């Protein structure tokens, strides 16, 4: 490795102590809880000290040993965990909610009401009313609330956002995001627990591909072009696998307030794609292209010139990309590093709030509760538009009425 290219000087400041993290979900048999625990420890900013790891109290307690959680802080349910941790002088600073979608609202809301900061998996809730309720409660409590749109943590995505903001491709005209998978191309939900809950409207909510992956694509599109949300959308949803109760393919057209047009294609039935996420952005002065399968590179084409490939860790990137990068160019970073970048920003926000300082002055890339609500709004609007044969409908959150 190359000392000269070390990016550490640009990293976010470390908290004075390791922040105490709790985990809801992630027990034996679950999957993403472990990913969160790993990402949180990646940069040594958190120590996992408490959990309600399963809705089955026995499994919750048994799973705690896998994470070195002390028995008295391995809770049988999240309500008890929130109340007891809030009462401890050494209680958790922040909780990660990594349960199935239909439980996010109740769990996250409970911790918010106890004044505990939250990192919540996407989609944030299964109903827009619940999402707006969370927005209100987060604002009332003044807590930090992060939503896990992990792709916004990739350094070259941040580079793309910074280049767009700096006018390096001119005024944005077009943004196109694809997020394609093939794991649900067959009726796998019959014998796969992950597939079962993600295709079950009771647990996943009303969106299939919409809720599981299109919300990622939507946040990515907005984040890179610097728009908070789309103004209007038109959707075509399909369910290709017989018997499936949710969409497994979603094609959306978007109109942004600033005039840009967008397209999102989210599919779970596209053979050959494990997680084929790609974003292309075109302005009047050039284009940008990034793909998850080569996440350390960003292709930039200034109009009329040869395309060039920018590598993560190269010295001339924007500060926001540097800050999110750990190792030199040519050493690939990936999913854990990106998720750890969200956790690094979460740590900074948590510490600033605990110090009684104002969060408003922090420029963070961590997606917030409003971004979570915008994703839920996208799901509901898309379903309605598709029902109305692709009619253009308002997609904005219209938060003006929310105190």
């Amino acid at each position: 490795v190359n000392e000269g290219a070390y990016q550490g000087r640009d990293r976010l400041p470390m908290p004075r102590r390791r922040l105490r993290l709790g985990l809801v979900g992630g027990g034996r048999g679950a999957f993403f809880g472990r990913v969160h625990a790993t990402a949180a420890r990646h940069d040594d900013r958190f120590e996992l000290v408490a959990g309600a790891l399963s809705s089955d109290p026995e499994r919750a307690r048994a799973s705690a040993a896998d994470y070195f959680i002390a028995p008295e802080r391995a809770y049988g349910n999240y309500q008890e965990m929130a109340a007891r941790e809030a009462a401890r002088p050494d209680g958790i600073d922040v909780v990660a909610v990594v349960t199935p979608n239909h439980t996010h609202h109740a769990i996250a809301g409970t911790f918010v009401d106890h004044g505990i900061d939250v990192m919540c998996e996407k989609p944030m809730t299964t109903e827009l009313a619940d999402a707006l309720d969370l927005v209100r409660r987060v604002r009332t409590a003044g807590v930090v609330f992060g939503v896990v749109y992990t792709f916004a943590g990739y350094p070259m995505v941040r580079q793309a956002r910074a280049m767009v903001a700096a006018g390096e491709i001119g005024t944005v005209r077009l943004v196109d995001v694809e997020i394609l998978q093939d794991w649900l191309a067959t009726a796998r939900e019959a014998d796969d627990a992950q597939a079962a809950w993600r295709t079950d409207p009771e647990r996943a909510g009303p969106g299939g591909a919409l809720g599981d992956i299109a919300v990622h694509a939507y946040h990515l599109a907005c984040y890179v072009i610097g728009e908070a949300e789309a103004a209007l959308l038109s959707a075509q949803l399909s369910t290709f696998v017989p018997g499936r109760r949710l969409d497994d393919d979603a094609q959306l057209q978007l109109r942004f307030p600033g005039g840009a047009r967008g397209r999102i294609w989210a599919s779970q039935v596209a053979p050959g794609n494990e997680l084929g996420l790609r974003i292309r952005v075109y302005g009047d002065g050039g284009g940008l292209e990034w793909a998850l399968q080569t996440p350390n590179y960003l292709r930039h084409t200034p109009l009329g010139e040869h395309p060039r490939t920018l590598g993560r860790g190269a010295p001339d990137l924007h500060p926001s990309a540097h800050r999110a990068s750990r190792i030199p160019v040519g050493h690939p970073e990936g999913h854990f590093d990106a998720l750890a970048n969200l956790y690094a920003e979460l740590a900074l926000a948590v510490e600033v709030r605990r110090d009684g300082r104002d969060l408003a002055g922090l420029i963070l890339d961590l997606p917030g509760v409003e971004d979570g609500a915008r994703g839920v709004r996208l799901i509901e609007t898309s379903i309605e538009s598709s029902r109305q044969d692709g009619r253009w409908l308002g997609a904005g959150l219209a938060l003006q009425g929310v105190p």
Partner: protein
Amino acid sequence: VSVELLARYGRRLRLGMVGGGIGSVIGETHRIAARLDNRFELVAGCLSRDPERARASAVAALIPPDRAYNSHEEMAEREAARAEDGIEVVCVCTPPDSHLEIARAFLTRGIDVICDKPLTATLEDAVALVEAVRASGRLLALAHNYAAYPMVRQARAMVAAGAIGAVRLVHAEFAVGVPAMVRHEPEPARRHWRFDADVLGEASVLGEVGSHAHHLARFVTGLEVHEVAAELTRFVPERRVYDDAQLNLRLADGARGHLWASYVAAGNEHGLALRVHGERGGLQWSQERPAELWHMPLGEPPRRITPGGDDLAPAARRGTRVPKGHPEGFLEAFANVYTDVADVLLARKLGAPPDPHALGFPTAEDGAAGLALIEAAVASHRADGAWTDARWPRPAGEQGRRP
């Protein structure tokens, strides 16, 4: 990766570190790798030869002041004397000419070692370290981290299973081309030790990057290098060390190969890649796209093999943490070395059999084979490229060809 043994052990392994203070990329890399799968806790260190830097580095690494040492000798002695909570493993990431002395100080006190590469600066030191490891009954794992990428493990398993038939051709290259490597650093204080002939000899390009390519070729093919014909070049005239090495190889079983190690492949990033061709097909892997292994069966279309499938080799599955399509990178591969070492140590401490797929990490013997190649290459170059015996250990009674 299963956490069963870890949960049974009930706590993380206590890790110490020598070298790797503030500003050291390799030190930060080892620390992240050690944390990633939650199997180690860094509790002691001698992070720099400069006492002030050692102290500041310990603070940054959250090491308690009474366990921040100024010499590795003192650290080994005092940690070994802490019966209840002394370190169980030490990471040595100092320059290679100090590895023998430091590693031996810990091995003789019963502390296992994870050592950065190359193993030592000379073959003589390497052989002495092999003997020290054997006498101690402890393990020494060598951080040839690139062999721990899941798709490299998959390649090894495919070669062993005969997927490409008997190996004929092996081409390994590690041709670096970032400015910090290509350009001469005029200020001696800022110059990396890799350019200092006193630390790693004139052929440091072979120790620094060539040794990785060599290990990768041996690991994937299972073939040792028997003879080498070398051409070493110094392109940057101010340097005392060679900055390019081209090695023709004769390997076991009649295979032929080439190893190219360079600091001056201007425009390359990190530049590590491997191609292997057998009687019935080929395999190709490049570190900058680490999740792709190309399998080219003779007469059929090439196939792209990626991590996460149930059909992959057990060692490849063991080195993968996230579902298909989520990129893992350099730090995760590095962590695979740590996790394998941890699981072997945990099995030993708990009296359980080790996972056979955790035993693939490089050892002191692999390091000695690397030093043997380097010394043979230097001898060959001095004899104008004469074929030179590179085997270690040399079979009893065989002189081998020397110039």
